[in-house]
């Protein structure tokens, strides 16, 4: 029913899409698969009228259409759920759903009619939402359902979902998938943008693989392929499924957190947290975002003083500001690389010293040692394979993966005792991700302690030697690898309770 032909799009000097063809059939779920930066989102934004292609055309039911604006797409029944939701937090669900498409009664909005319509939709899809609840009070999964509700209300014929599972728990993913199957049964065509292979196999009828702006494989049936072949297509080479089997003996306690509590605007964010990270150990912190991870990270890096509680490094108390923590060799991979970790408008070499700019190798009598800084930057660029024109290039000109390599390089160059790594591979491509993972494991194997906070449960599960689960500021579970299934961790992340029943589920998986 939909066909995009020979789509090409160039951004200043990068070719984002190169002669891409894409077909969508009536009532199918089509997975658009590819690494970050492969061009998936660009292709869909073209379909949705947010970006204009340089060449190529779009045919809808055989008719060429001109998408100049997203309103054109909406009027033709094409809806998109963006990765970052486009909702108005202060509005209710009802208001969000009907905005810009309100049923009217004269010059007024017919609120009663609108409520009836929205209620009917909620009931039909079993969404369990209250139309008068405010969006800001909803969980991420619920917000996503509101986004889908918006599409349903506009009677979408084609629904585009951009990385819909990135922010969901395994349980919420299952819910989402059953909604999608229901929609499919009613004849809606769905495009799902993803880079997760497991989910692709779980939901997709057909798969199209994009790499570097080109179609690698079109209209593949899941039954004709398998995970390793697909990942090979995505990345262009075989990925080594790395499980850090080799593990040195876990050593003495390195970093210890004792009875830490933090509250923000008189809301408790961390409630009496105690745990320890040992030498030669990666401790993973799993949890849905907003359950105290940010506050924990701030406390552990000196950006915030805990209201109660203390932090010990090798048995002695650490307290002070971020400078003190850095001086104590507690290095930090900040959760938001672009606003906290790097200065985009400064050069690679300037960024490689941030936080360590008082060290002897960097300055003498208050003056910067330019040559020493440049030489060390050259070494880092080489040894960490940072792809940059030279050490004077501005960080904003680098790709996300290479930017993150700067943060990692800076941390590892300064001989850390402990590494506090927050979402170390968020938004980086698979190549850089593998590399960063290998560096973290290398550090662990050299007998250092690592605390890994990640929203990606898969990442936490593959890297960690021990996992703690944070829920509403408390540690609700401490788990050794293989002790709990992904499903069980997901249940704990959402505040559930493990029963014998879920235990049985673990045995079967």
């Amino acid at each position, binding site marked *: 029913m939909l066909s995009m032909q020979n789509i090409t799009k160039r951004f*200043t*000097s*990068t070719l984002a899409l190169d002669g891409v063809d894409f077909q969508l059939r009536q009532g199918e779920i089509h997975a658009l698969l590819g690494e970050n930066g492969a061009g998936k989102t660009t292709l869909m934004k073209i379909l949705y009228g947010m970006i204009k292609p340089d060449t190529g055309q779009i045919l809808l039911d055989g008719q060429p259409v001109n998408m100049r604006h997203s309103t054109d797409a909406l009027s033709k029944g094409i809806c998109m759920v963006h990765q970052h939701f486009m909702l108005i937090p202060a509005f209710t669900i009802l208001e969000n759903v009907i905005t810009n498409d309100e049923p009217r009664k004269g010059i007024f909005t017919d609120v009663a009619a609108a409520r009836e319509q929205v209620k009917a939709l909620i009931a039909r899809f079993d969404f369990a939402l209250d139309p008068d609840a405010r969006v800001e009070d909803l969980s991420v999964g619920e917000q996503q359902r509101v986004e889908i509700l918006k599409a349903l209300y506009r009677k979408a014929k084609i629904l585009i979902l951009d990385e819909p599972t990135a922010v969901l728990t395994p349980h919420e993913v299952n819910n989402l998938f059953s909604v999608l199957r229901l929609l499919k049964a009613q004849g809606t065509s769905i495009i799902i943008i993803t880079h997760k292979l497991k989910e692709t196999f779980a939901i997709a009828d057909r798969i199209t693989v994009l790499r*570097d702006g080109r179609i690698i494989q079109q209209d593949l049936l899941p039954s004709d392929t398998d995970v390793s072949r697909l990942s090979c297509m995505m990345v262009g080479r075989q990925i080594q499924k790395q499980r850090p089997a080799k593990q040195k003996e876990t050593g003495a306690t390195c970093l210890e957190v004792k009875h830490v509590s933090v509250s923000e605007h008189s809301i408790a964010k961390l409630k009496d947290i105690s745990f320890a990270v040992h030498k030669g150990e990666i401790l993973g912190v799993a949890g849905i975002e907003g359950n105290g991870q940010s506050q924990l990270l701030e406390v552990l*890096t*000196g*950006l915030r003083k805990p209201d109660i509680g203390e932090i010990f490094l090798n048995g002695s108390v650490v307290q002070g*500001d*971020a*400078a*003190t*923590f*850095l*001086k104590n060799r507690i290095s*930090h991979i*900040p959760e*938001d690389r672009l*606003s*906290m*970790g*790097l*200065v*985009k*408008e*400064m050069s690679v070499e*300037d960024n490689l*010293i*941030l*936080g360590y*700019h*008082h060290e002897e190798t*960097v*300055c003498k009598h*208050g*003056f*910067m040692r*330019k040559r020493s800084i440049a030489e060390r930057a050259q070494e880092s660029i080489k040894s960490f394979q940072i*792809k*940059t*024109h030279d050490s*004077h*290039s*501005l960080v904003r*000109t*680098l*790709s996300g993966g290479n930017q993150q390599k700067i943060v990692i390089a800076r941390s590892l160059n300064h001989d850390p005792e402990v590494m506090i790594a927050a979402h170390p591979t968020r938004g980086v491509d698979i190549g850089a991700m593998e590399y960063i993972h290998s560096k973290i494991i290398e550090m662990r194997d050299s007998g250092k302690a690592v605390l890994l906070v990640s929203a990606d449960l898969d990442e936490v599960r593959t890297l960690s030697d021990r996992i703690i689960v944070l829920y509403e500021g408390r540690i609700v579970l401490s788990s050794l690898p293989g002790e709990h299934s992904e499903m069980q961790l997901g249940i704990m992340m959402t505040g559930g309770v493990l029963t014998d029943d879920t235990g049985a589920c673990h045995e079967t998986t």
Partner: protein
Amino acid sequence: MIQEHAMKPRNLLKANSSLITIRTSLLSLLFAIVIGGAIIAAAGYSPLETYAAMFKGSLSSRKGIVLSLTQATPLIFTGLSFAIAYRVKLVNLGAEGQLYLGAMAAAVVGYYVQGLNQFSHVSITLLASATVGGLAGLFIGYLRIRFGAQEVITSIMLNEIIILFTSFLAAGPLKGQNSVTVQTERIASTAMLPVLAKQSQLTIAFILAIVIALLLAVLLNKTVVGYEMRVTGFSRRAAETGGIKVWKIYLLTIFISGAVAGLGGASQVMGVNRRFVEGFSASYGFSGISVAALAVYNPIAVVFSGIIFGILRAGAMTVSRTTSIPVEFVSVIQSLVVVFMAAPKLGLDVIALPKKLYGWIQQIRTRQTMRGGQAHE
């Protein structure tokens, strides 16, 4: 292969970035002068003749050049003051007040301290002006850090308080005995700045301004403190995460900013008026914003943009003597420069307009020929 592909855009960006800034500055100035010309025309004068007279007045004679540099001196000081603060993203609109305070300090130390040789008297007087101006800046910084009061507001409000306070001093306790107007006593001759050109008001303050610009450039680019200032300016959160004590950087920077503005005031008292005169500043403090903006907050470039505005001012002063075009006309150009610098895309868009129009026409033509071709098939 992939690497090569990925590197190309970086090359372009790097080569372009400095070019773009210089081009934007020149374009902004050009647009400001052109639009200023339109305003002159609207007022019933010939823009070409007026500009010719202006540049003739400020550049064609030795006297004109000296006058231009004299006018440039306080502008370089206030331009540096605004620029350095803006490098840590503090908007110090208080240069006008800090300038007055520095001037008053110079008038007091220049008059009451007696019996020193010229070198020490000048040094002490300058130091006093810088300190007083710096302290005024520090107060603004303190309000920001301690109470979160936006420096944009506090600095501009403080201007009124400071200027009225200095007027009070000059009209009351410190009023010159024989003067009719509101001004202080004439400073001692030992506190006067040596002149650079005979029969002029161009003093070594001009050299001092250049030296300070150089020092600030070194501070920013070569020292650890400068590094911390740059990081803080680009990203406060990154600075905090990197263990930089942002509040210290703010206080230090706003102190420097105030001190430099204070020196600007001293340069007028010690070199031009020889005493504090009420309302002596021809809005030097606020003109500093234009000077800094045109220089894209680069201390060395501030010297040049200060001189450019000095030339314009000197020219306007000569023209105002012969025509009825007022000196204030320069502030029209100044303000337009700020507009174009603040919205660099505006200038580039205007330049790109003919090209764009041409592109549209081409597009319509090709579409028409394509349609014609299809019809044939």
